Every structure is written in structure tokens, then in C-alpha cells.
């Protein structure tokens, strides 16, 4: 082997080393908070106050998790996060289902049943994606008030559904535009009507984008704090608001282990959704980009 080839190989190895080294370092950096949260939530309060944050727990205990789930005090009630977790589920499931369904119909109409001004309507809907949360809080509060939905979970479902339509319409419209129009025409000649084509031809082909839409909406709605804190109070709050209350309102020593466990509980559903359906997420996002 010539020295030239050898030095080229060495340079290549060094490059690899550098790439892997940086990636590992960055991964550690990003995983650090998660690590701290997990180990802290598994420690007793005494151990936290006497030792370091980062080290492994000397004695693993799930006390903090139990407390965060069932006993932690939020306001005057000491029922833990459980009722609020249920609140969040009652909010997120209908809101995700509704916004995805409406987005699918919108996308279908905007691509396969084009009407004069369809692009303009789509443009307006896109505009909704860039509308900051803060801008809609006051008018939304008025609307909820006149609908008598103030401070209720159905009210929150309505807010999230309306806010999500922009995004879901964007997803479905961009997906359906890649499905050839001839398919709709063939179905029309076969005698299928508007909804028959939607349910029998378009939706089955849209599975990847349905998954994308659901994951996106689920994380957005589950993690939302601003709408939750603005439009609900007390017992009807979603988990993000409850978590805030646990962490910010404490008497005596700050219970870091309970705080961390509560934060983990609040984060687990979105993590699970990503782990279960993440494969489809990437596939769905790139489906339109690659032909065939």
C-alpha cells in the first residue's frame, strides 16, 4: 500500500471519528435533562437534598411517582395528576379526531372538487397556521362565553379543533394533490358519489397522512398550556396546567422528585405516540416528496 493511500485512509478514519464523536456528545447533551428527570424522580427527597442531581439513586423508590399521580396537592385538592390526566384525554381524543376528519374532507374538496377560488380559500387556511395563539384568546373567550362553553372541556375541544384545521387541511391537501385526478374520475364513472369516493378510494390511500395528522395534533393539543390556562379553571384544567400548579405551588421544602415525576407523567403520552407511530410519521411526511 502506498503512503498516499494510507494517509487518505487515516484522514477518512479521523473524519469518521470526528463525526461519531460529535454525534455522541450532542446526544448526551440532549438526553441530559431527561436523565436528570428520571433519576431525580426515583430518589427520595432526603437523598436529593444531600447528594448530587446527576448521580444514580442509591435506593430506587417510586414514592414520588405515586405521589404525583394520586396525592400531590393542586390548589386545595390533593388528588394528584390523575383527574387532570383524564381531562387531557377527554380533550385530546375528540379534538384530534375532529380536526383530522375535517382536514381530510377539506383537503379532498380542495384537490378533487376544485371550485372557483379554491386556491384563495386554501391560502386563507394556511394563514391560520401562522396566527399566534395570543391573537385569538380574547375573541375566542367571547365566543366560548356566548356558546356557554367557558371553562369546560368541550370548549377546549372546540378551540383546539378550530385551531388545528389549518394544519390538518395543509397536510391532507398536499397529500391528496399527489393522487392523480384520474382516480376520482374513474370512481365517478364507476358510479361513486362524493362520500363514496372519499371513504372507499381516498381515505384508504391516505393512511400515512392520517397518522401524521394525528401525531401532530396529539402533541400540539396535549402539550398546549396557553389555551388550557386561559379557558379552563380548577377541576377542568388539562394536565399541563395542573403540572404548572404542582411545580409552582409548594409548601415547605421543594419536592423536586415529585415535580420530576409529574413532568414525566405529563410527557409520557406524547412519547408513546411517537414511539408507536413515529415510523409512519416520517414515511407520511416524505410520501409526497418522492414519486411512486
Amino acid at each position, binding site marked *: 500500500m502506498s503512503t498516499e493511500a494510507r494517509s487518505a485512509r487515516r484522514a477518512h478514519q479521523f473524519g469518521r471519528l470526528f463525526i461519531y464523536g460529535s454525534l455522541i456528545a450532542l446526544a448526551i447533551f440532549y438526553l441530559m435533562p431527561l436523565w436528570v428527570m428520571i433519576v431525580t424522580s426515583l430518589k427520595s427527597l432526603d437523598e436529593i437534598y444531600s447528594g448530587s442531581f446527576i448521580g444514580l439513586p442509591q435506593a430506587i423508590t417510586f414514592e414520588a411517582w405515586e405521589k404525583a399521580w394520586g396525592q400531590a396537592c393542586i390548589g386545595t385538592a390533593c388528588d394528584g395528576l390523575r383527574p387532570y390526566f383524564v381531562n387531557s384525554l377527554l380533550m385530546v381524543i375528540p379534538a384530534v379526531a375532529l380536526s383530522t376528519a375535517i382536514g381530510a374532507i377539506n383537503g379532498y374538496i380542495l384537490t378533487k372538487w376544485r371550485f372557483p377560488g379554491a386556491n384563495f380559500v386554501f391560502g386563507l387556511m394556511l394563514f391560520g397556521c401562522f396566527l399566534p395563539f395570543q391573537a385569538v384568546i380574547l375573541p375566542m373567550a367571547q365566543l366560548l362565553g356566548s356558546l356557554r362553553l367557558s371553562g369546560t372541556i368541550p370548549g377546549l375541544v372546540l378551540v383546539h379543533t378550530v385551531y388545528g384545521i389549518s394544519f390538518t387541511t395543509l397536510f391532507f391537501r398536499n397529500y391528496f394533490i399527489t393522487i*392523480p385526478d384520474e382516480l376520482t*374520475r*374513474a370512481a365517478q*364513472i364507476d358510479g361513486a358519489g362524493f362520500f363514496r369516493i372519499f371513504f372507499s378510494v381516498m381515505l384508504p390511500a391516505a393512511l400515512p397522512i392520517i397518522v401524521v395528522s394525528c401525531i401532530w395534533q396529539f402533541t400540539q393539543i396535549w402539550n398546549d398550556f396557553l389555551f388550557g390556562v386561559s379557558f379552563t379553571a380548577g377541576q377542568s384544567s388539562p394536565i399541563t396546567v395542573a403540572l404548572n400548579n404542582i411545580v409552582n405551588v409548594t409548601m415547605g421544602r421543594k419536592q423536586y422528585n415529585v415535580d420530576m415525576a409529574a413532568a414525566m407523567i405529563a410527557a409520557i403520552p406524547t412519547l408513546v405516540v411517537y414511539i408507536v407511530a413515529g415510523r409512519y410519521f416520517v414515511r407520511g411526511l416524505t410520501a409526497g416528496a418522492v414519486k411512486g
Partner: protein
Amino acid sequence: MSTLEIDRVRKAYGNLEVLKEVSISIGTGDFLVLLGPSGCGKSTLLNMIAGLETVTGGEIRIAGRTVNDLSPKDRDIAMVFQSYALYPTMTVRQNIEFGMKIRKVAQADRDKAVKTASDLLQITHLLDRKPSQLSGGQRQRVAMGRAIVREPKLFLFDEPLSNLDAKLRVDMRTEIKRLHARLGTTIVYVTHDQIEAMTLATRVAVMKDGVVQQLDEPQAVYDRPANVYVARFVGSPAMNIVPALLEADGTAVIEIARRPAARIGGIALSADALRRYAGKKVLVGIRPENFSIASTGSTAPSLTIDFDVVEPTGPDTLAVFQLGGVEVTARLPPRQAHAGREAGLAVDTSKIVLFDSETETRID
């Protein structure tokens, strides 16, 4: 009975007129090919027959019934699309059955129809596959199967072969012709490929800019093109169109560079046309195969030229030369033409067509 009448049909998008008073009428069992380049309005016309596009003016009648305002499903038609348009999430069987399911055909009848169609198209072994697992030719068959089970009055084909490779295209062409012979259904078929039009059609409508240039049997379109456009579009290599001067006795005189002009007499022409065009410039249309190497002692009119380029294709040789100031192609038997050589060529005058040099329409 399944006739199709297109009666002064127009189509406009705003001020843009894509079809101008198109009238076509075909009988039961006819195979109509709408032939033209992209943008000539042929696909628009097909979609109007199918009911996928609205009719701006005129009437479309299928089997004597006006269908202008009927939805596609009520027109008793079936359509095969260029991209096949198979439902991607359904199996082949479900694809073929879909229309029947919507029309609430009983399961037993559906099974029978699927079996008949799949036997006919030899796709029985593919029934449980998804479209993505099929080759182009197989998808094409499935699309035809979906159309056949409909038992329509009218089959519509929208460039069905243009997504296939050359070899398969020829095979499927034969297949479609066989299918037409077997089923005897009236067919409207859109293509830009003149060979498909020639081989398949019983009637060809050559279209350009939303106007039907000629509607006739394929051989008549080939032999007696209505104008220069049709003459150039149908046939490959295209018909040679050469400027000439028509003498009073009906002899066409064609200039040849650096040689005596060619005098081609004996062209069939009515007395009236002869009177009108005597002494005027005309365009002479000669098919490449109507040239032959002149034999000594022959009475056929002949001309002496120099071959420019010679392209052997196997069965015959295409020889290019200059005539009347334009490039002309002759189809000759192999090994008879040599580039750069002088040659005497005979012309079959009975096949010659004359066109008006201004309007470019045929002179009879």
C-alpha cells in the same frame, strides 16, 4: 344499438375556445379514433362524452339519448385511463367489482362477471394482488377488465397505451383490436399515435386546434388526406409535400436544382379543378412508398435526382433528396439507393394528391 352522435359540440373555458363546432357520428360497433397532437382538444372531447367535462354548446347523444346533463354513471359508458387509475388500496378483484358493488349487483353475479372478464383478459391469477404488484401491461388489462364488466354501450379509451414500452404497446394494441372484434362494442379511443389510429380504427377523426380536419376510414384518410396537415400527420415517414406548377394539360412541373424540371403527368383531376388551377402553383403530395427506382422502358413519369442521405431500416431503405426546393423522402427496396449517387425515380401517379397552395386543402 349503441351509436354516438356528437352534434355541433363546443367547449370554451372563458374566452378560450378549445372545441369549435365538432360534429362526429358513428354507428354501432364502430371503433372511432380521435387523433391529434396534444392540445388539439381530443381528450377534452372524450371527457365530455364521459360526462367529466360540461358541454358549452351542441349535443352529445349516446344510443339516440341526449346525455349532456347526465352524470357519468348514468351514461352507460366505461372508461380506460392513461394512468389506468386503479384504486391503489384495493385488490384486482375489488377494483373490477367496485362499480358493480355501487350498483348493488348481487355477489353471485359479480363473481360471474369478474370470472368472465378475467378469463377473457387472462388475469385470473392476479385477482388477489394489489395494483402496485402488477406490471404496466397487467395494470392495463385490469383497467380493461373494470370497463368490460360494466357491459357499457360505449367504451372510452384515453391514450391507454402511451405509458407502455414499445414492444408491449404493439402487443396490447393487438389485444384491444381482438377485444373489439370479440365484444363488438362501440369504442371511442383517443391517441396521438397515428399508427394506433391506422391499425385500430374503423373511423378516424383527425383533430387540430379544436376542429375536426377529416373524419373517414383510416385507409381513406391515408390515401386521400383532406389537407396538408392531415397528410403530414398520418403516415411515417410523412407524406412529401412539394411545390409545383400545374400546366393546362394537368402535368405538374417540379423544379429540381441543377437538373431539368420533373414533369409528372397523368394525375387524376376533375375538369373543373383543372380549369381553376391551370397555370397556378399547387402542392403535390407524394407518399414515400410511391417512388420506385425507374426501370428502363417504363412509361411511368420519372425524375432524375441525387440522393442526399440513405437510411436503411431493414425491410426497406429511406432515401432523402431535394425536390422542388424541399426535402423529400422515398421508401425504396434495400440496397437500391446510395448516398451521393444520381438516380432515376419513377412515381406512381395514381396515388398522387394535389393541394391548394394557399388554403392547403385537397384539390379533387
